[in-house]
């Protein structure tokens, strides 16, 4: 039985169509429809309920050390008021989950984890906490994302201080609300963690602005694929290491050859040895979408060699054509190169396309 979001009644009232995701009944689309929801977010401000994502707080004198063990970066040096894209690795160098870790204070970190990974992430961190003078605790929150070019203007009316943030900066409000200038659409925007008691009023206040519309998970997926952002469980998983996933950039250079974090030695070995495949963007030449799981081939002939796999794909409403991401052998990754995807037994031509498909419009300051 799927759990319901704390704001479920609001989504029902808004006419949402629901689907199961990460153990929750999630709004997939609203009456606007996924196409218009997507385009609205790129032009105005889209409001997403992403409360399936998990908030985990790590506190205590050795909280920086715990984070540095769980995640491959120098949490000790992380500046207060900043968020960082990172991940947790297993001993084999595979990805347990990808995360945003924000430093809220000298001895306080907030981990935002994928909904489908919430339980295993929490268990992993709680087990680690036994080795440190630190405490790990799940924080029940309503988590909203406001995304799109009008987000800053809209949110400034409710939270005047929000305008002071630049991309990947975070703050806390007096009432405990967590605010981060970040998102998963490629647009400027914010992610807002609210206590369930005040969340409904806050969402209603946002929706009073004519620029704001509810946006479902369907458009969230097409927006993130156009922006070239990977989705855990789709583009990578526990069997994928960050080198193969193209996410090594998130590890400081001096930690790629080893460190005290879990998975360091396995990762160093993988980084030295190199990997056979590399992530790429794929633009199907025709109109048929090419979706995750489709195999990629060097040529159109049935006996041409398989050279990769599609990890995510669908239609890109802002691009006006299908968009996909996948992994192909190193020799085939040049932009403009033509390869073929097998879709229902047919070979569909695809062109290697640089990511992202649309420019990322993050706010990095004036």
């Amino acid at each position, binding site marked *: 039985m799927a759990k319901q979001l704390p704001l479920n009644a609001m989504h029902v009232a808004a006419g949402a*169509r629901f689907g199961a995701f990460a153990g929750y009944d999630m709004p*997939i689309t609203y009456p606007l*429809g*996924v*196409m218009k929801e*997507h385009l609205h977010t790129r032009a105005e401000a889209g409001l997403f309920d992403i409360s399936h994502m998990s908030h985990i707080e790590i506190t205590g004198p050795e909280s920086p050390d715990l984070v540095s063990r769980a995640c491959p970066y120098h949490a000790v040096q992380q500046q207060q008021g900043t968020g960082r894209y990172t991940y947790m690795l297993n001993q084999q160098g595979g990805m347990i989950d990808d995360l945003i870790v924000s430093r809220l204070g000298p001895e306080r970190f907030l981990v935002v984890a994928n909904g489908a990974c919430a339980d295993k992430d929490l268990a992993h961190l709680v087990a680690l906490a036994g080795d440190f003078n630190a405490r790990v605790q799940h924080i029940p929150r309503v988590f909203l994302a406001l995304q799109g070019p009008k987000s800053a203007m809209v949110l400034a009316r409710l939270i005047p201080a929000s305008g002071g943030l630049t991309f990947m900066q975070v703050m806390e409000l007096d009432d405990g609300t967590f605010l981060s200038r970040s998102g998963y659409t490629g647009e400027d925007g914010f992610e807002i963690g609210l206590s369930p008691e005040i969340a409904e009023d806050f969402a209603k206040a946002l929706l009073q602005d004519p620029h704001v519309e509810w946006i479902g998970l369907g458009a969230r997926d097409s927006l993130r694929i156009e922006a070239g952002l990977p989705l855990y469980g789709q583009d990578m998983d526990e069997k994928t290491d960050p080198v193969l996933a193209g996410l090594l950039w998130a590890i400081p250079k001096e930690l790629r050859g080893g460190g005290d974090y879990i998975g360091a030695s396995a990762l160093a070995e993988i980084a030295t040895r190199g990997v056979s495949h590399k992530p790429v963007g794929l633009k199907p030449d025709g*109109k*048929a979408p090419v979706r995750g799981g489709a195999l990629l081939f060097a040529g159109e002939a049935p006996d041409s060699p398989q050279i990769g796999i599609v990890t995510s794909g669908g*239609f890109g409403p802002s691009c006006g054509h299908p968009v996909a991401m996948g992994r192909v052998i190193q020799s085939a990754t040049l932009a403009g190169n033509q390869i073929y995807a097998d879709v229902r037994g047919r070979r569909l031509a695809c062109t290697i396309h640089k990511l992202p498909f649309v420019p990322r419009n993050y706010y990095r300051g004036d």
Partner: protein
Amino acid sequence: MASTFYTEDHEWVRVDGNEAVVGITNHAQEQLGDLVFVELPEAGRKVARGEAMIVVESVKAASDVYAPVDGEILAVNDALEGSPGLVNEAAEGDGWLVRMKLDDATQLETLLDEAAYAALVG
């Protein structure tokens, strides 16, 4: 005199003599959301009842459309190649999918009438 039947898989079948025009219901297009691609069969293809004969792709997912009865594809709606959204705009009109010849008109008796389909989708 044409009469319209429905399937539990949310197709409509408008029968005229021994030919029928087939599409997906308005309820089905609402469930699927914005269509971005329709993969239609070749004219002349023989299809058996229950066989996947068309794929409709929304932004998010691909779904099969099944042959409602045995028959042969006579024509497809070419307008959908450029405008798959016609199915969303007029699922039971201009957004029709294929025209087919019926092998056995008695198969129609097992399909739903309008009232039964309306009851099915509530």
